[in-house]
């Protein structure tokens, strides 16, 4: 009845490291053991790296890495506006207010055989924890990394040790069509259990379409504007198909942020 995360906490963590990961992209590593302890792939955090009331709201980010031994997590983000610019200027040792882990963990198949991971831009970020988890469960991951230009292809070397194969696609080299072809081949040749996609509605629609024809479960990370992250503001809705007809609104922070593509409407 009540969907919410029982392990979510509000803590003040500490920045351990903040490094550039490409033009406009950064990886932030923070010490927040209480949050990391209960976090799982597919979940996210709401961060606040400033004390005053402007910017007002926390900023949501997917977990990029979960390092339980070190009690640390990483997020990979793009500097988009005021909030992410402020976070990119933090320094090791600075305090960071962390609310999380939030959202629903990915419902992994107990023994996944093979999964596809498709990320565009900073949408590659959550694929790393998924690849790690799939490997831990004895499965194989195939990553398709997409970006506008070669310098925006993120995490490729980081993903390799955890994936069976990593392919890259850039817009300047006709990436859209090539990615479609690569995914079709992958679906045909490998018995994929699931395909995860983040960072592009176009790619999510593609996976939804192939999922209907194929036999894998497609999932998309949805990003809706969020104020609270815990289900109280009712602001973060996505349209989800209803059993009968039509659709209902689902809160991305409670039911998501990862939704089955057989249910969620990509708009």
């Amino acid at each position, binding site marked *: *009845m*009540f969907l*919410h995360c*029982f392990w*979510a*906490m*509000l803590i003040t963590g500490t920045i351990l490291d903040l490094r550039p990961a490409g033009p406009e992209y950064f990886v932030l590593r923070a010490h927040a053991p209480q949050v990391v302890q209960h976090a799982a792939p597919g979940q996210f955090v709401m961060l*606040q790296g400033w004390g005053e*009331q*402007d*910017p*007002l*709201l*926390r900023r949501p980010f997917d977990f990029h890495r979960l390092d339980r031994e070190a009690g640390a997590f990483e997020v990979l983000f793009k500097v988009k506006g005021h909030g992410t610019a402020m976070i990119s200027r933090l320094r090791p040792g600075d305090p960071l207010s962390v*609310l999380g882990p939030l959202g629903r963990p990915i419902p992994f198949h107990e023994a996944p055989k093979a999964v596809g991971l498709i990320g565009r831009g900073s949408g590659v970020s959550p694929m790393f924890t998924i690849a790690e988890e799939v490997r831990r469960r004895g499965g194989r991951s195939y990553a398709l990394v997409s970006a506008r230009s070669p310098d925006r292809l993120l995490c490729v070397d980081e993903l390799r040790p955890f994936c069976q194969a990593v392919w890259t696609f850039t817009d300047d080299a006709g990436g859209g069509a090539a990615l479609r072809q690569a995914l079709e081949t992958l679906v045909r040749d490998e018995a994929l259990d699931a395909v995860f996609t983040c960072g592009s509605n176009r790619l999510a629609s593609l996976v939804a379409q192939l999922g209907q024809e194929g036999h894998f479960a497609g999932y998309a990370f949805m990003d*809706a*504007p*969020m*104020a*609270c*992250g*815990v*289900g*109280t*503001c*009712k*602001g*973060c*809705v*996505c*349209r989800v198909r209803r059993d009968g007809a039509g659709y*209902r*609104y689902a809160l991305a922070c409670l039911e998501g942020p990862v939704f089955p593509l057989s249910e969620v409407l990509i708009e």
Partner: protein
Amino acid sequence: MNEPDLSVSLGRLRLKNPVMPASGTFNFGKEYAEYFDLNQMGAVVNKSVMLQPRQGNAPPRIVETPCGMLSSIGLPSQGIEEFLTVQLPFMRALECAAIVSVSGTSAEEFGELVSVLDRAGGVDALELNLSCPNFVDKVIFATDCGLMAEVLQECRRRTSLPLIAKLSPNVTDIVQMARLAEKHGADMLCAVNTFTGMAIDVRTRRPVLGTVTGGLSGPAIKPIVLRMVWQITQAVGLPVIACGGISNGTDAVEFLLAGAAAVQVGTANFINPLAIPETIAGIRQYMLDSGPHSVTEIIGAAWRRSAAGR
């Protein structure tokens, strides 16, 4: 040191302290129970419940603005039936007053909700959300003297529970609306709901919110709401619950000094799930540092200073 007395009386409604959540920013409490002991609050207030289940507005529903946010949620609701079996029992079980916020699309709908909740038992007061700016047809009861009077009369007729009229700031003269609410049977006022506003995306050249306009809340509105509370409390005898941008103890004390008998913490809960307990602790600390023994003695203290000259 003497522990300060934070209890307040709003007419017949006694609260152990003057701090409660603003409707629609706290669901009915469940989500925040993991972060602090909800029994600390003066009262719990649910997201306005409607008679029938509703989906709410099309996204995008929220957009951030400087020191504030615009929202157009559109009152999604589980409907009164589920409210009575799930949400109300949770609220009732807390060791604080249970204030039930209701919203309707007509005077009859408000009246029906009030009757049902009057019979339900365990409700300490009813807050009438007369001021949601985001119904699709954009009727704001509390901006129309005739409509507001009609809803209040209908509700008053159906219950003897304390009625809180939640006012809209989207009017020319808020004092006039406060007087009208007093005349038609409100026991208390809640000032205020959100300010109608909008945002446009310059890249797409389109309004950001799915419903074009939404309600502005958060620290950005605090000075305006403070002025409204200051004016209302000096003109009208009813207890006023202040609501608008209150994020901490200092904000709360400012509103008490302006004449509010209690305060609601709204948008601040989204950023800081501990905003309510921190606000209570902040008031207590203020009392310890510089206040009299009872918080009731600082209510409206700023008018007296202002009247006495500097």
